[in-house]
């Protein structure tokens, strides 16, 4: 019998924090606000840890019923929570990173007038994210799903006086809505065929089903629809466009929501539904392809960006692409593994970037930076760690997770692997480009003092008047440090066998993913074969291991190649990039304009919609067709009325004429009747 973990407390605590800050924050001091914000998020983290400690003693999956939510006929969806290894991992990542970023924000947002608002939003986000993670049915998950969307809407548009920020928030919400549309349809299909949205019930009914022939079938449809939802939330092609704009939000937000946690919700959802996907190879292929493409394209865009946060944004998109690639080839555990490590190092990178921006007074253009190495030692070193990690330099978190994905990708198809490796190369290139541009060379920006307080983050530290570029306060540095450590050592929970580890992370998630394989998933499921092999480390034939090692080597080489290239272009001869860009101006232009995707969407979707609705529907149908028809009918009546009036010529003899005529007709009719009878 399971103990009562009171899981519901974990989401509720941040909600309480949000409520307290939202209602009373305006009138209370910054200290109080920070205390409240930190306490509640911290409490959630603590509770999560507590759960983690008692985890081994639970028989899984652990479910917890709180209350009815919707009951309609036979269908029902309740407030109920679901805990297994997968959700535990997510739980810890979210609460931990979330808590750290709360701390960081205290320093970053200290001087912002909307301080209390910020923390209330942040807590609100935590609430929804945790609901999403802990839900035991799709509908509850959908609450979190939409809720985090709301939170990100609010936080992106946090500085709402900036039009770009407001638009970005709206864009994010709407694009997410497009994804949710697919998600909803998927849910309807589930309801229609399984009569329930509760994970356990749905999966129980799905398990006996056999893998569908690729391309067709119910599960495939469901899978693809769910993937549409994931695309929206996790910024995959074609719905990734909102994420870069989302960088309008304060940097901690970018770190927490648009790097570490929310955007990974899609990955989580897909792996949560792995039972369905495993039986829908068609859907899996879609996932894999989308992931791969996104990874590659986003990376290429990343090269050309000059805004430090934009670079990170595109790199996030591309990393998410990796995760989906993993899911797509059935390597869910690898995907989750990368999700975790990515949460660490990308969160770190964003925070560090934030610290840089903070230091140089809100400047985000890398071309205006440089030589900050000495001025911001902490930031520099932590960011280095992050960069190395994401670039996949051996020994760091990113290396292991990415490697695991690539290996499994190869097992599925060499195409995925190739794309993955190239992306890895590009990734390390643009990351080191960022690194070099920011910290090396000499400072290219105007005197930072000049634009103190004038930048978008209203006076991130305008309060204490001092010139020059300076290291961030300790409250911001500490989270950096912790995350740096995590992104260094975080990978060691999943050292693959080939490197003499035994993939503990994979084992931990084993019961979730491996217990549910379809009956005959033989050769159709390359990835799954790999998975089964991995479980039996010892028995793994040597050449497999060596092959895996070789591939690892290739990806490492790719990483270093990227590093080298970046060193060449942005450290040794900084004038080269301009000439190259000039050389391939056309391509460069296209890429640096993000392939004009936004413009294309605007031209193809938005403008026609607005103009069409205005001129055709509103002015056309409403005014011209419907209203005019009615009015014309009324006018017609009035005309007839006028005719009738003119019977009343006012002339007595005419009246007599009418009467006589009427009488004549009447007499004629009656006489005719009389005769006819």
């Amino acid at each position, binding site marked *: 019998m399971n103990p009562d973990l009171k899981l519901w407390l974990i989401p509720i605590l941040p909600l309480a924090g949000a409520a307290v800050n939202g209602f009373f924050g305006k009138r209370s001091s910054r200290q109080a606000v920070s205390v409240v914000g930190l306490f509640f998020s911290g409490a959630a983290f603590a509770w999560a840890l507590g759960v983690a400690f008692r985890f081994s003693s639970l028989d899984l999956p652990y479910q917890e019923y709180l209350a009815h939510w919707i009951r309609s006929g036979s269908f029902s969806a309740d407030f109920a929570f679901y805990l297994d290894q997968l959700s535990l991992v997510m739980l810890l990542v979210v609460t931990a990173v979330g808590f750290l970023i709360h701390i960081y924000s205290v320093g970053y947002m200290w001087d912002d007038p909307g301080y209390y608002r910020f923390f209330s939003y942040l807590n609100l986000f935590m609430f929804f994210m945790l609901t999403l993670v802990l839900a035991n049915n799709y509908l509850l998950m959908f609450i979190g799903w939409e809720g985090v969307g709301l939170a990100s809407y609010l936080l992106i548009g946090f500085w709402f006086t900036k039009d770009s920020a407001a638009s970005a928030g709206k864009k994010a919400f709407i694009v997410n809505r497009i994804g949710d549309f697919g998600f909803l349809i998927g849910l309807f299909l589930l309801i229609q065929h399984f009569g329930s949205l509760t994970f356990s019930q749905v999966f129980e009914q799905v398990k006996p089903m056999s893998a569908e022939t690729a391309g067709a079938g119910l599960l495939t449809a469901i899978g693809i629809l769910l993937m549409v939802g994931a695309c929206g939330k996790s910024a995959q092609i074609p719905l990734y466009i909102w994420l870069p704009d989302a960088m309008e939000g304060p940097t901690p937000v970018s770190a927490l929501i648009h790097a570490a946690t929310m955007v990974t919700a899609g990955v989580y959802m897909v792996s949560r539904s792995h039972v369905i996907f495993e039986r829908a190879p068609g859907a899996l292929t879609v996932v894999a392809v989308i992931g791969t493409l996104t990874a590659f394209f986003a990376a290429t865009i990343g090269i050309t960006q000059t805004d430090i946060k934009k670079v990170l944004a595109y790199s996030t998109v591309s990393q998410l692409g990796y995760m989906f690639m993993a899911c797509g080839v059935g390597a869910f555990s690898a995907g989750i593994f990368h999700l975790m490590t990515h949460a660490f190092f990308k969160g770190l990178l964003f925070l560090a970037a934030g610290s840089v921006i903070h230091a140089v007074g809100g400047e985000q253009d890398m071309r205006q930076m440089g030589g900050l190495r000495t001025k911001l030692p902490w930031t520099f070193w932590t960011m280095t760690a992050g960069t190395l990690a994401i670039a996949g330099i051996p020994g760091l978190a990113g290396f292991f997770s990415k490697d695991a994905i690539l290996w499994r990708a190869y097992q599925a198809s060499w195409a995925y692997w190739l794309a993955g490796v190239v992306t890895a190369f590009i990734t390390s290139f643009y990351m080191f480009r960022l690194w070099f541009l920011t910290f090396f060379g000499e400072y290219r920006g105007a005197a930072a003092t000049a634009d103190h307080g004038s930048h978008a983050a209203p006076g991130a530290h305008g309060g204490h008047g001092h010139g020059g570029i300076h290291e961030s306060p300790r409250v911001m540095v500490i989270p950096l440090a912790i995350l740096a450590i995590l992104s260094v050592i975080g990978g060691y929970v999943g050292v693959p066998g080939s490197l003499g580890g035994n993939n503990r992370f994979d084992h931990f998630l084993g019961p979730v993913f491996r217990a549910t394989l379809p009956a005959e998933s033989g050769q159709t499921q390359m990835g799954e074969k790999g998975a089964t092999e991995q479980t039996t480390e010892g028995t793994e034939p040597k050449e497999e291991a060596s092959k895996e090692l070789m591939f690892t080597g290739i990806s490492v080489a790719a990483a270093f190649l990227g590093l080298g290239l970046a060193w060449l272009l942005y450290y040794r001869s900084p004038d080269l990039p301009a000439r190259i860009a000039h050389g391939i101006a056309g391509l460069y232009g296209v890429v640096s304009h993000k392939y004009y995707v936004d413009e294309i969407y605007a031209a193809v979707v938005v403008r026609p919609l607005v103009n069409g609705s205005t001129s055709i529907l509103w002015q056309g149908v409403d005014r011209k067709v419907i209203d005019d028809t009615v009015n014309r009918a009324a006018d017609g009546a009035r005309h007839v009325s006028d005719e009738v009036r003119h019977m009343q010529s006012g*002339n007595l*003899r005419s009246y007599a004429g009418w009467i006589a005529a009427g009488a004549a007709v009447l007499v004629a009719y009656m006489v005719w009747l009389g005769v006819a009878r």
Partner: protein
Amino acid sequence: MVPLSYYLVLSGILFACGVTGFLIKRNIITIFMSIELMLNGVNLSFVAFAAHWHQLAGQVFVFFVMVVAAAEAAVGLAIIIAVYRTRETLNVDQVNLLKL
């Protein structure tokens, strides 16, 4: 012996003449006379039918019609005078303030 229908036709002709007068005459008084003509026509058929049915009721009816005609004449001519007072005309075509 004269067929009943002769009388009826005669009365019909008179009635029709009355109607025609109402339609074509312009002078109000003449129009009023045409009404009287119509009544006379009716009276004739009453009397004729009375003879046909041996029912004196018909003749009594004629008597009443005459009384009514007298009354109408009194009122009608009074009205005509009133109209003339306000409009200085007896042409019915010019008495058309009220219209549409």
